[in-house]
């Protein structure tokens, strides 16, 4: 079925591209190997839609690891065997396992000869690439996290913050980095950061401890709770945001899920869909424009999405300033139901 869809897609694209396709008799669709971490979501959809919209024929070979690191070795072997034109990797784990870290990529274990694009990697610098300006190898990619300064400015534009709370999973490097960055900015611009790690038992973070940490944060009288782009907290977002709501703590999320599908009050993110499209644009530059991946810088989408979760706002009673209202995407599920019967 999926195969059929891609074929139809490719056919449509061919038809759309018209004379260009005709000038190149028998133009084969580009074969792209998509390695995903937790199923088909918005970034993958944005990636796919870009090619359809641009009329570029592609054949997508889609593989989902289902959050199982062990499968990634097979993916590398399969991509090599299929001799695909490009590999797309989703997430930090998939990208680092399949493409290798920038200083230890191994042609035997990693994809090195086939060009690759990565998306949704939290900290690519020092991981898969040495710097954002160039990977210095056969890959490029996109950023999906809003720079910490921008996030802090966004929070400050909602309400001036004197004390910022944060709960995080101490086992994830992303979250530790975020806590450090936040602390640094706080020291420079004059606010205090109260960052509490969740409890860990048997090498695993305990979801039950989240509510306790939120209560502790509340006792510290913070103005805002910062929700980092943390996989553990993403999975347990309902527990976290509900706890914050119970204590009437306004929350800011660095990823879209806590706001869009849970009860975080407000967030500043690059939408996954946009990130996917930007990643596809980079793939187009490699495949169609024949630009070497190392010459394509790694960057983030231009447009920042400000998300405001209106039911939560109403419940807490902390209303956003008008300017932010004008910029924001308002999420108001109850109203949406009213408007669209």
């Amino acid at each position: 079925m999926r195969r059929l869809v891609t074929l139809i897609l490719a056919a449509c694209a061919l038809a759309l591209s018209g004379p260009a396709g005709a000038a190149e008799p028998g133009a084969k669709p580009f074969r792209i190997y998509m390695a995903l971490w937790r199923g088909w979501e918005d970034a993958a959809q944005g990636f796919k839609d870009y090619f359809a919209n641009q009329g570029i024929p592609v054949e997508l070979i889609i593989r989902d690891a289902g959050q199982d690191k062990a499968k990634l070795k097979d993916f590398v072997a399969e991509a090599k065997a299929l001799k695909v034109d490009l590999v797309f990797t989703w997430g930090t784990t998939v990208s680092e396992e399949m493409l290798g870290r920038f200083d230890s990529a191994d042609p035997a274990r990693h994809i090195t000869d086939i060009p690759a694009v990565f998306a949704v990697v939290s900290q690519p610098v020092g991981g898969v690439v040495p710097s954002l300006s160039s990977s210095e190898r056969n890959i490029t990619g996109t950023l999906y996290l809003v720079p910490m300064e921008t996030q802090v400015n966004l929070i400050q534009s909602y309400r001036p913050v004197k004390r910022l709370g944060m709960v995080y999973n101490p086992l994830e490097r992303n979250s530790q980095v975020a806590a450090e960055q936040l602390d640094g900015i706080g020291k420079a611009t004059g606010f205090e950061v109260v960052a509490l790690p969740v409890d860990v038992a048997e090498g695993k973070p305990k979801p039950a401890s989240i509510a306790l940490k939120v209560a502790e944060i509340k006792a510290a009288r913070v103005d805002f709770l910062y929700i980092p782009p943390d996989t553990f907290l993403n999975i347990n977002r309902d527990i976290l945001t509900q706890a914050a709501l119970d204590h009437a703590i306004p929350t800011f999320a660095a990823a879209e899920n806590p706001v869009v599908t849970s009860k975080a009050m407000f967030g500043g993110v690059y939408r996954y869909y946009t990130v996917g499209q930007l990643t596809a644009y980079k793939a187009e530059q490699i495949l169609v424009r024949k630009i070497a991946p190392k010459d394509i810088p790694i960057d983030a989408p231009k447009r920042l999405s400000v998300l405001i979760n209106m039911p939560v706002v109403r419940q807490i009673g902390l209303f956003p300033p008008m300017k932010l209202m004008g910029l924001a995407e308002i999420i108001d599920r109850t109203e949406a139901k009213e408007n669209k019967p």
Partner: protein
Amino acid sequence: MILDRTRPLFIRLLLLVVLVLVPPVAWIAHQATGEFSRGLIPEMDKKAEAIGRDLEQSIERAVGYGIPLDQLQGMDQFFAPVLAANPEIRYLAVTDRAGKVLFIEGAERSVLEAVYGGADFAAGTEHSRKLALGGFIDLAQPLAIKGARIGHIHVGMDQDYVGGRLQEILVDLAVVTLGALLVAVEILLFVVTFNITGPMRVVGTVMERVRRGDFSCSAGVTSDDEVGRFVHGFNGAIRLADQLFRRLEAYIDEVKAAHFDAGVVEKVKDIESRVRFLFRFARNGRPEIVNEHQATDIRLPLFLFVFAEEISRSFMPLYIRDLYAPIPGLTPELAMGLPIALFMLVIALASPSASLLANRLGARRVFLIGLVPATIGFVMSALAVTIYDLIAWRAATALGYAFITMACQGYIAQVSQQQTRTQGLGVYVGAVLTASVCGTGIGGVLAERVGFRVTFLVAGALTVITAVLIWRLLDSTQPQAEGPSPRKRDFLRLLRNWRFSALVAFAAIPAKMALTGFLFFLVPLTLSQNPSLDLGDVARMMMAYPVSVVLLSPLVARFADRVGWRVGLVAAGGLLGGAGLVLPAFWDEPVLAVQAAILLLGVSHGLSASPQLAMIPDLCWTECRAIGQTNVLAFLRLAERIGSFAGPLLAAALIPLYGHQGAIVALGWLVLGMAAVFALLSFAYHAGPHIETEWGE
């Protein structure tokens, strides 16, 4: 010293043009402003309504999401950009159902509270309404959620705004009219001198020769109008006399050959020699064609070209700023000063060779040659991409500028005899200054309406017109071989004359420094920082300079001729100009201070420019005798360009240290200091032996 022979004619034509042009323009302007204000008020209402609706939608959206009207957040930051972008809107406010002011930006809450709180307002309407509120017009639009009125959004318009806008347009119109007047006068002057007074002068010359018994010439006027027919008839009469002589000559020859009586032959020979002594006739029957060139022939082309150059005067630094790209090793300010400084440098470097070339090839050809780089320079400046190519194109224009000004000076020098040379120079200075007034003013208005680049294209078009004029109308003058050009050693000798060196170093150079550094560079940059001034305003303010020079120069020249206090005038002018630049340090109104500084600089140069030149024959009479007065003056011109070149760079170097305003003041102190040195030295000027010797002769 009469600066300009055409001045009386110029003034009469100006009066005529003023009488003919100004009343209809004034009438049309009056009618148009009436229309404009009638049309503007509904437009403003519409705009206020649109803004009100916009704000209304945002507020209703927010309230629709469940935010109570009185708890809307960040309304000041929400209103501020709207107020900043729309100068005609003075305040924005939100009131609740009872007329209580919830949010207000741009006006005092208490002032409006009283009005809105009235019972009349609380009665409420479902439609927008307008009411006059002192100097404001308040447009209130209802805010409603699901059909229920929750309050009003108020947009307060400034009633004075229309008046202000109208005044601005009228001032623009006045500037354009002034420019048009001067252009019209220049063209009239050209038409009159070219078609009437010029031919009449030729006829006068021929008549003078006829009066002295010389029938060998005829006036070289070929036009097919009344003047042409008159000259044709006049020439016919001379030809007739010439033919009559030829017949007489033939008869005398016949008598001499055929008569036997030696006494008769002797008598006839006597008569023949008497006639030959008293009258002169064309040797071979072909008359000598008299054509007289005059300095005014070149006035219109020169005017048009300088006009084209001056058009960019008010915005050149701003244009450079737009194109700015970092130049390694230079601060941004220095890089921005560079195109103006290099423009001056190229003129200085190219002028001597251009002058030589004008002598060798004739003014007409050098003028046409100069128009090529100038036109390319203007057109490509319009299309410039970065500061780098702009510098190249400005250098091309400067090259053309050097060629053309030297060609004009050469032409004037060739056509005017030694006695009328000062008058001829007056034609030159007059054309340049009038063009400066028109160009600066019209350029500013143009740039404001159509942008910098199109304005440069207009300049390019003007140079093309100039080329056509020169091509079609100007006869080529006979290139005159001037005496051998002086060598460098002579100029060094000139510098050893301390009076001359002091004049160059402490009067001429600081004057140019103030002109290019302050007026050409710092004024546009400084004034453009003030948001209430647009380009037209800046240009109008800058016009004070050429206008005051134009008005003052001839008066001062006459005064100086009568009183002979030239050194004093130069010193006073320098001090005044420097004092003007320092003024912003002591005056809280920066715009007024800059305006005063511009005006004082104009007065300063008006005072000192012509005495400076008139001083030269007295100051260095030995050198004038050795290398010629023209060369001494040319050397002065060349030397003072050091100031022109240094001015923008110096000003640019001062900006990072003291800011824009501070750079003006710092430059002012420098100019004032140099002027003070000159003033002190000037007391010693009269004591020297030079002038006594000169007077002794």
